[in-house]
């Protein structure tokens, strides 16, 4: 997938949760949304992008993606 599309979509999701959710839960909301609706290869790509600096990603979105990455790692190593 073109990473710019994924970045745009992720940021859009981020904007919704930043404005709509309890501010403390925005990052978690973004992560849950990505987990629920994004196919694994899309998540892998955005995680890879975030790990390389996440150019273009809004900060809460980057945090959410890295949270997902950490959860995946934990699951894999468990």
């Amino acid at each position, binding site marked *: *997938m*073109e990473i710019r*599309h994924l970045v*745009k*979509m992720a940021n*859009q*999701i981020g*904007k*919704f949760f930043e*404005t*709509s*959710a*309890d501010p403390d839960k925005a990052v978690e909301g973004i992560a849950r*949304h990505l*987990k*629920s*609706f*994004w*196919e*694994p*290869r*899309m998540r892998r790509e955005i995680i890879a992008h975030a790990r390389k600096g996440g150019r273009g990603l809004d900060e809460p979105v980057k945090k959410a993606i890295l949270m997902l990455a950490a959860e995946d790692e934990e699951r894999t190593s468990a």
Partner: protein
Amino acid sequence: MLAVDDKDFGTPARASGQLVTLEIDGRPVTVPAGTSLMRAAALAGISVPKLCATDSLEPFGSCRLCLVEIEGKPGFPASCTTPVAEGLRVRTQSERLAGLRRNVMELYMSDHPADRSACNADGGCELHRMADVVGLGGVRYGWEGRNHLDLPLDDSNPYFVFDPAKCIVCSRCVRACDEVQGTLALTIDGRGFNSVISPSQNEKFLYSECVSCGACVQACPTDALIEKSVLEKRKQGRARAERAVVTTCGYCGVGCSFKAEMNDGQVIRMVPDKNGKANHGHSCVKGRFAWGYATHPDRKTRPMLRKRIDEPWREVSWDEAINYAASELKRIMKTYGRGAVGGITSSRCTNEETYLVQKMVRAALGNNNVDTCARVCHSPTGYGLKTAFGTSAGTQDFDSVMKADVIMVIGANPTDGHPVFASQMKRRLRQGAKLIVADPRAIDLVRTPHVEASYHLQLTPGTNVALVNAMAHVVVTEGLVNEKFVAERCEAEPYARWRKFVVEERNSPEATEKVTGVPARAVREAARMYAKGPNSAIYYGLGVTEHSQGSTMVLAMANLAMACGMLGRQGVGVNPLRGQNNVQGSCDMGSFPHELSGYRHISDASVRASFERAWGVKLDPEPGLRIPNMFDAALNGSFKGLYVQGEDIAQSDPNTRHVIAALRAMECVIVQDLFLNETSKYAHVFLPGSSFLEKNGTFTNAERRISPVRKVMEPLAGKEDWEVTVALSNALGYPMEYRHPAEIMDEIARLTPTFAGVSFEKLDRLGSVQWPCNEQAPDGTPVMHVGAFVRGKGNFTITEYIPTDERTTSRFPLILTTGRILAQYNVGAQTRRTANNVWHPEDLLEIHPHDAEDRGIRDGDMVKVSSRAGQTRLRARITERVPPGVVYTTFHHPESGANIVTTENSDWATNCPEYKVTAVQVMPVARRRKTVRSVAEPAATTMGK
């Protein structure tokens, strides 16, 4: 004329808790108060002769045939206009009555063509039947006097003729157009002997305001108005219906019930079913008349395949096509991984068929790469209503509108997209309900005969959320919240947060006016009107969902409805007008990549386990690719095989260039369809599909109503669509064994709690049911969230307005928005192959006179429409329906390439494309003197708009 096996009770039923007992011809009869004597007699099995009365219309009392005698009362009152009264003793037969009726009939027959054989050959002519019933032997007046027998025929309409020579001016057609359809296109011109039925201002039918719904044809008791298809069959001696099969329309989300009248295996005509709970005996031009596409010469009935898309098609056997398709999909999975293939279910195929496609993808292909066309239309409805209320569907049944006091239509054009429901809505509006329309365009509903919107909130495309937030601001700041409802029925903390958000000054009508373009005063007044109801209902369409904030907007409307307590009873609700005949059903059946049937997430282990047990296979717990993601993955090289059933993504999806590039990048595209469509240009396997006339199954309409689809002819290609999917699944190595779609529905019922009580047997018995249909609601659920929301308590969500990225600039200064028109249906695959083309032979670009003048564009000029995505050419129609700065077109013709210019912007939650906001420039291509006229002009605006 009525369907062949319909009983006509003469006048409508009356709902009353009070019962009245009287005596008719010596028989005691008990009926609700307000029932006419005619209907009471009919219910008792006594037929009173009649001509001007029919039970779909209010009584008129003009034909003077239905006279009766009432003991103790003088004269001979018309039984159609006389209500029952306690203790009346009525006689429907006597020497005097017989004489009066014969005299009346004699007058009618004296001005009617003498040859009755053609008229009554198929038993349809009530006039001749009544002549027989009253015992009319002959006409004493001769034929030398003045008569109407030389009046010219009007056969301008492609589907029916009007022969005034056979007309008895009973005015049933006029009343049908008024009361049932609500267009009021017909009148009686002249008086006395000179009376004649007149479409509009004495226009021919085709050029009048007639929308060709067929209500007049249905109501006509003679052959004055009759279907051309019946006349054709008469020439072959095959007009008499041997049987009538009740089925469900294959067009829009209203899901009208029809009787297919058959003779020798061919459809003579489709007659709306009086017992249809979605349509109550009404229809529109598409379902009523435009069914000929099913046997159009363009139908492909043999499977075809080719190794490369630049090769010609080769017809092959079913076995060869299926085996090739399966082998290719298996090869692709082996080469690229099981995630490299997927499927798209059809929103035009049955529930059973879409269920099997998603089952095949999950069980045979081993992934969740399955999606449906709801992706590009109402997927935000699914997300938004599930989040707010707990169910991904509308809250009411259609009949609920008759209890609404305020109707708010947002981003929908029901007179074009859901015409039969629109007729019902207009009936309620004529009764006095108030109307608010929020739409950039002046849709017909804004001002139509006897209906006028109290408020037309003509907002700038892309600003829906700001508008509804502003309405909610008014509700909260002016103390109009239904605090009791909110306290009892909604979660407290989300409500408190939402309330704090919505009262902020930036959400006020005054602040949002700058963005929406809607005057603050209008927003305040509309908000007050909605909040005060007492019953206020929201109806919305793709003008809500096809935006980058589509899901947010659904949540915003849900917030407004909850705040005002407009949920959980008749007359209120949040009602998505779902476009296609089975788009609701395809979503219900688990066509989404993240959900199994019944809207349960694939990651839910216990839900997944139930399917794994039933299907005998492990399922992938991760969400699959959505349609737009499939395209991206194809271009990226990781998605190579696609099975598309009954969808034309190359025409219907946005950014056509992107879609085509994606299809080209795939190694095996399998298209299953009735015709070679735009997508099939990039396909390797073509599997011929079956129309709704050629299969058994069910459709689910916009009000969650599951209705039967019944086969009336054998599939032209030899297989029903579900049989093709079964064959493909078997060839892929996942066995499927179903003998009949009823067995598929039984499986759906076993696995899907909201469908647990559904069966073909129940549908045969009840006609239709609305889900949830289960132990708690064995006969279905017309109104949802009564007492409590499905999720328990309603969930308020903060809906911050975020402008779309699609901005106008000096290079692209106009906003293009798209929509539909009555005569055509979606990509036009069906309707373009019928006579409906006469009303809409091409897609036009509506442009405001100021914008046109600025660009030197005249009506009828070809113009270039360019966006950041591409450009296309359309013919301009100058109109004030659209405001300055906004242009509008439809997408029914592939040549117009409307989706070449639409972009990849999409809803944040669902990727539903933002069809409704595309920044464009419009410039003339070539100047012509031709003025655009739809066939329906020069009269007032009609279907060609």
